[in-house]
């Protein structure tokens, strides 16, 4: 690889010292003069008519400045279906839905006031899962659904908020020609985002009536747009600024508590801080979509995959949020990264009286990949084939087409599969203790990075250093560092000469969101394009200054422009920028706007539904897990995980490894332990004392393997790594359990009790002589 200044180097995070010393400013650290503190009243019913909300006693409490109810916030919002209000109006649709908000002089008073609000409800029958919601005559969550503004206005059955079909070829006909057809039904659970930092916001109104909101979020622009919509304000009266973000994973993609904080600030004229307790965050925020996936896959005796059908039902919870797009994306991914010519994927997202489901690292892909990759192993077992061989035989390669027609510009899937296979099979361990069984399982994954538009502004300061402003929020993954590295490389300056601007809707150019594994790839493209713009402008000045043609100029390390082939003939960025600022032409500012141009091939593909517009470029990976199963308790201990990803080019290998390790950890939680369990209408474990997120002592060694097949459209060949590492962990673990014990699980999480039940059932079958 050519010498690089910044790209390809595993430099530590720019913000690491601030985080490690506790100086990093999170939203709860913000103090403003005269600031009030807010708290929410959450509904104690999953489905009820609000008869009345009496706030008089709360308002009478000394120190209480404002109490809001649903009537104060009548405007509905939502990215795909405008079905949600900031506070429940008329009806509550999930246990924990905010009903009122209080601002007071201090938090204790605000919480005391919440206790004084007298809300009366008339309980309504609830629907707690999609089967109940879709049953004839089921209670309807949104009686006015037909009148809601929607992204796509086709008629839908009651309690359905989205339906999508993606198909190519003729799957049903193709099954008839297959040697083996395997069918299975797989179920996944609500996983809570469980970012370390609960949601919060500080809002303040200036003397012109404009509201500024500081919050941890994935997009200051979505906060601005949604707050404006929820409060019926012009966007120009809302300013959103990102604070340090303590993790998001999709849970801070849409607004959280910003609209309530903003209206409290507007009503009181004082700054207001609203930060959720962990308990309130669990009860009122979001989860990954629970899913039921029916998959049918047909193959030839030699393992060639021929056809696959998928029927997916997502539990969207009480409000649509991103459900339509999650559904569409899940179906687009449901074929898996294989050359399967006949595919038909059908799905729906259903309203239930649960916490709203949302995008969550993987965006529907972990659910369908759990099902699809489990089934690949089941087919391999049925045909007596090696599970890696069957995947290699069918793996997509560079130049192949995805469902919908997009051609793969780069695809390192084969190399990823071989890498995890070789790494996993090279390990030698002493045999397991009696009563424990060991096995290794594999999965192959594909995902997309890209999605929608973004932009960058790069300013050359008077001294020749740079300010890079992209509006991209770093959620903790290290994107500020990576984008600064891209910028530094593009202009051949040290990384510490690049100032990364805090995302602020007043000053930052538009960036859709930190989501969809897109920042390195999409914002990186905007940064390289803005840097190219800067370079061109610097060269124009340098050509004047050195009296030569711009075409003869080159960048030299350290922030200089020189005449190619003439050592010593050069001018520094500082000299150029001083000239531009004070003499000729004006300040040097580079700008770029980027939109991913994708789309569908309608001639070959049947496609109806939400969320499948322009997407992004495809990324590939493979994962392996070795597990040991305790036959007496069913406990699964993961011994080691290998995770290989084609990232195009690792801009910062240390950050890539960190993303892989974090994603695998989250995937292990999904595979084995995390589950927001409902006890009737209410979550039974809305606290970290009962909801288990794996911590460092719970994790095995995680081995990141970085594969680099440069992506032609990516910045320095790079593509995304944010989501992929979470996606294939559950099926790899499931397949490892199958390899160890023979039991083929279909429900997440794979708790000790579920594993033991399956082991017992297997034993009973073999006692009966009915086992295979």
């Amino acid at each position, binding site marked *: 690889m050519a010498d690089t200044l910044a790209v390809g180097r595993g430099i530590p995070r720019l913000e690491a010292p601030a985080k490690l010393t506790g100086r990093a400013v999170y939203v709860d650290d913000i103090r403003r003069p005269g600031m009030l503190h807010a708290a929410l009243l959450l509904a104690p019913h999953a489905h009820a008519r609000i008869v009345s909300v009496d706030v008089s006693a709360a308002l009478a409490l000394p120190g209480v400045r404002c109490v809001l109810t649903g009537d104060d916030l009548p405007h509905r919002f939502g990215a795909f279906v405008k079905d949600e209000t900031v506070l429940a109006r008329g009806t509550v649709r999930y246990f924990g839905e905010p009903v009122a908000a209080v601002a007071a002089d201090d938090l204790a008073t605000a919480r005391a006031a919440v206790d004084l609000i007298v809300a009366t409800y008339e309980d309504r029958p609830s629907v707690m899962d999609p089967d109940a919601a879709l049953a004839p005559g089921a209670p309807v969550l949104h009686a006015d659904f037909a009148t809601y503004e929607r992204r796509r206005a086709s008629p839908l059955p009651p309690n359905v908020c989205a339906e999508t079909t993606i198909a190519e070829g003729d799957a049903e006909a193709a099954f008839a020609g297959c040697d083996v057809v395997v069918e299975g039904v797989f179920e996944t659970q609500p996983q809570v985002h469980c970012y370390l930092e609960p949601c919060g916001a500080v809002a303040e109104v200036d003397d012109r009536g404009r509201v500024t909101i500081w919050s941890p979020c994935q997009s200051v622009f979505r906060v601005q747009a949604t707050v404006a919509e929820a409060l019926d304000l012009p966007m120009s009266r809302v300013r959103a600024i990102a604070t340090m973000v303590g993790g998001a994973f999709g849970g801070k993609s849409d607004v959280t508590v910003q609209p309530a904080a903003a209206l409290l600030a507007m009503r009181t004229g004082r700054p207001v801080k609203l930060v959720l307790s962990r*308990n309130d965050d669990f009860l009122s925020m979001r989860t990954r979509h629970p899913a039921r996936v029916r998959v049918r896959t047909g193959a030839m005796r030699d393992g060639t995959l021929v056809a696959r059908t998928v029927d997916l039902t997502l539990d969207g919870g009480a409000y649509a949020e991103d459900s339509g797009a999650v559904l569409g994306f899940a179906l687009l991914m449901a074929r898996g990264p294989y050359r399967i010519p006949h595919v038909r994927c059908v799905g729906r997202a259903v309203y239930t009286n649960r916490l709203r489901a949302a995008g969550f690292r993987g965006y529907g892909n972990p659910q369908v990949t759990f099902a699809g990759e489990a089934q690949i192993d089941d087919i391999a077992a049925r045909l007596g084939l090696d599970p890696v061989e069957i995947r290699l035989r069918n793996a997509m390669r560079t130049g192949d087409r995805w469902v919908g027609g997009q051609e793969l510009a780069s695809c390192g899937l084969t190399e990823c599969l071989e890498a995890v296979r070789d790494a996993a099979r090279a390990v030698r361990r002493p045999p397991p203790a009696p009563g424990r069984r060991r096995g290794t399982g594999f999965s192959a994954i594909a995902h997309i990075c890209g999605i929608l538009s973004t932009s960058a502004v790069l300013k050359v300061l008077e001294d020749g250093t740079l300010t890079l402003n992209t509006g991209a929020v770093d959620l903790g993954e290290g994107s500020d560092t990576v984008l600064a590295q891209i910028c530094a490389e593009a202009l051949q300056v040290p990384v510490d000469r690049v100032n990364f601007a805090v995302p602020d809707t007043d000053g930052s150019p538009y960036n859709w969101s930190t989501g969809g594994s897109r920042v390195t790839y999409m914002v990186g493209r905007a940064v390289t394009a803005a840097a190219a713009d800067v370079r061109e402008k610097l060269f124009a000045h340098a050509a004047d200054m050195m009296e030569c043609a711009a075409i003869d100029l080159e960048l030299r390390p350290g922030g200089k422009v020189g005449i190619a082939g003439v050592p010593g003939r050069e001018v520094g960025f500082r000299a150029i920028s001083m000239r531009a600022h004070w003499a000729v032409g004006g300040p040097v500012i580079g700008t770029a706007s980027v939109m991913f141009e994708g789309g569908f091939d309608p001639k070959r593909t049947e496609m109806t539904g939400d969320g499948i517009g322009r997407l992004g470029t495809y990324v590939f990976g493979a994962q392996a897990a070795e597990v040991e199963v305790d036959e007496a308790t069913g406990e699964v201990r993961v011994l080691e995980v290998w995770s290989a990803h084609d990232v195009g080019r690792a801009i910062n290998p240390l950050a890539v490894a960190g993303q892989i390790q974090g994603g695998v950890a989250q995937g292990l939680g999904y595979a084995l332990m995390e589950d927001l*369990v409902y006890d009737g209408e209410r979550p039974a*474990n809305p606290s970290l004392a*009962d909801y288990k997120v794996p911590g460092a002592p719970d994790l095995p060694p995680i081995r990141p393997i970085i594969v680099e097949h440069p992506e032609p459209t990516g910045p320095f060949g790079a593509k995304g790594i944010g989501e992929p590492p979470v996606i294939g962990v559950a099926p790899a673990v499931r397949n490892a359990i199958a390899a160890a014990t023979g039991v083929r699980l279909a429900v997440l999480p794979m708790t000790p009790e579920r594993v033991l039940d399956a082991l017992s059932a297997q034993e009973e079958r073999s006692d009966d002589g009915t086992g295979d």
Partner: protein
Amino acid sequence: MYSFDYHKPASLSDAAALLGKAEEGKLMAGGQTLIPTLKQRLARPTDLIDLGAIAELKGIKEEGGALVIGAMARHADVAASDVVKRMIPGLADLADNIGDAQVRNRGTIGGSIANSDPAADYPSAIVALNATVHTVKRTIAADAFFTGMFETALEEGEIITAIRFPRAEKAAYAKFRNPASRYAVVGAFVARTGGSVRVAITGAAPSVFRWTEAEAALSANWSAAAIDGLSVKADGLNADIHASADYRANLVKVMTKRAVLAAG
């Protein structure tokens, strides 16, 4: 959390006086259950009386051939105590696996048994080792101490001062822990003391209980294999989001066997 008055008396008599005066007083040992309860606003005491400064409640020592642990001994103290490790290493091991490091550095043995959480670890050791609970008023035998879920023989305001454990020949604890809280889904403490075997099970039922069938089997044959022929009925066992009663019944047997193996 609601506001309250905080006291930290230096003697048992001062603590008793404060408790007597308080409108609704609560004694606090390590606070590992009480503080989360207050944070959840599930309790609203007027006064909190912290027992942490009372010297009489501290210390771990050997006394007349028995192990005496002060009520305010932290789990980390018990886990690290040379006296405990020498006399009843299985008890040190139990303490070393309670909760996490933060809990072990704050939580106390007296607080744990006074709370009588059905999933706490210590009750199984108290019962299996046939310990005696000493209070400001009297001594209470292990079998009489735990009376139900979050219930004990303690009277209102009665403060535990120490727990006295007879030395055991063999003793060990095995638990299947809740991955989140690290409480026992099921924990089994087995002990052989002077030819008598006691098996105490925590986590499985509303309160710690002795598994008498296992005690008889182990008395006849001290080995894990002695448990193989026994069966545990799920009736009356706890069932919650963490485990069904059937699963707990299986764990009672599995953890008892593992405790016997660990005890050697």
